[in-house]
């Protein structure tokens, strides 16, 4: 599953950050996961628990903040909540551009 690959990427980012910011242990990882991001949060938690042993994130808590999907209509410019890329504008049927909720981003870390 690609959540495993994403967790491995996350560990790489933590290791790079540890060198730059001079820390050795991660206590909390605050992750933004967009509703439209193709990531299953439960799977991400499962994979993180599976791979964090013997790493700088071994004692870390992964906190996932879900970011709702939002899109703007190309025709009438209103902004709407969306749950998938398959939706059209509920007001005029126009095409929607996603403006929020497709990210997978480490927002901040608590480290020591």
């Amino acid at each position, binding site marked *: *599953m*690609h959540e*495993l*690959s*994403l967790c491995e*990427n*996350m560990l*790489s*980012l933590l290791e790079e*950050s540890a060198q730059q*910011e001079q*820390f050795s*242990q991660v*206590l*909390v990882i*605050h*992750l933004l996961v967009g509703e*439209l*991001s*193709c990531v299953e*949060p*439960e799977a991400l*938690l499962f994979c*993180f*628990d599976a791979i964090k042993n013997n790493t700088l994130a*071994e*004692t*870390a*808590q*992964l*906190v*996932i*903040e*879900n970011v709702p999907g939002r899109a703007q209509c190309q025709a009438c410019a209103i902004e709407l909540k969306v749950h*998938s*890329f*398959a939706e*059209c504008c509920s007001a005029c049927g126009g*095409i929607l551009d996603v403006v929020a909720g497709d*990210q*997978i*981003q*480490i*927002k*901040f*870390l*608590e*480290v*020591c």
Partner: protein
Amino acid sequence: MCSVCGCETSDSLTSSFVQPVQKEPRLIHLEKNLLEKNNFYAECNRARLNEEGILALNFVSSPGAGKTTLLVKTIEALQAKQVIKVVEGDQQSARDADKIRASGAPAVQINTGKGCHLEAQSVGKAFDELQLAPADWVFIENVGNLVCPAEFDLGELCKVVILSVTEGDDKALKYPHIFRAAKLLLISKIDLLPYVDFDLQACIAYARQVNPAIEILTLSSKSAEGLERWFDWLFQQSQQVHVVE
């Protein structure tokens, strides 16, 4: 609420908590995309491809939609006038790379093991192994999967999604990410249309609902119907990739 900075963590999930070591904690605002590493390698691939005027296409589909067969037919028809090289992605086995080589084109097989998609770093290494040269075409046949490849940029010019008429005509609605990410939809195995309940017009409408800009071609590798239009489309894309003298 977060006990350190007071931010609201509504609708949040947490992993199993382990008592931390007693040291002075501090916050680091990172704001890093988890796909940053893959995106970096993808941009390296893209820069190299653009510099050498190489057309690179990322073929995605469900398993069994006909990617390999289409690539074989394309290579057999065009290799006399165009160098085509292939990167093959599967969980296991080199069977697809073997079929490509048998058709006359060089191929490198990437076995992803547990992985469900190709990533840019391994594709870049495959480009090295193929010894890509200016004006080559490189076809990347991704792992058969309509979900994960949408997230992982490989550095290609564009994605081509293949949907066969033996699948559901509403695939675009069920897997919108990949259809939104693709430039071209190839509806394959159209020789089987008389024998399946596949509504071609509905399929096209659903694809355009998800991605209004998607281009659509229909074809059959078996009967050769539509292959010439596909070859024309390839040459049009090739003209977009300029060789820097």
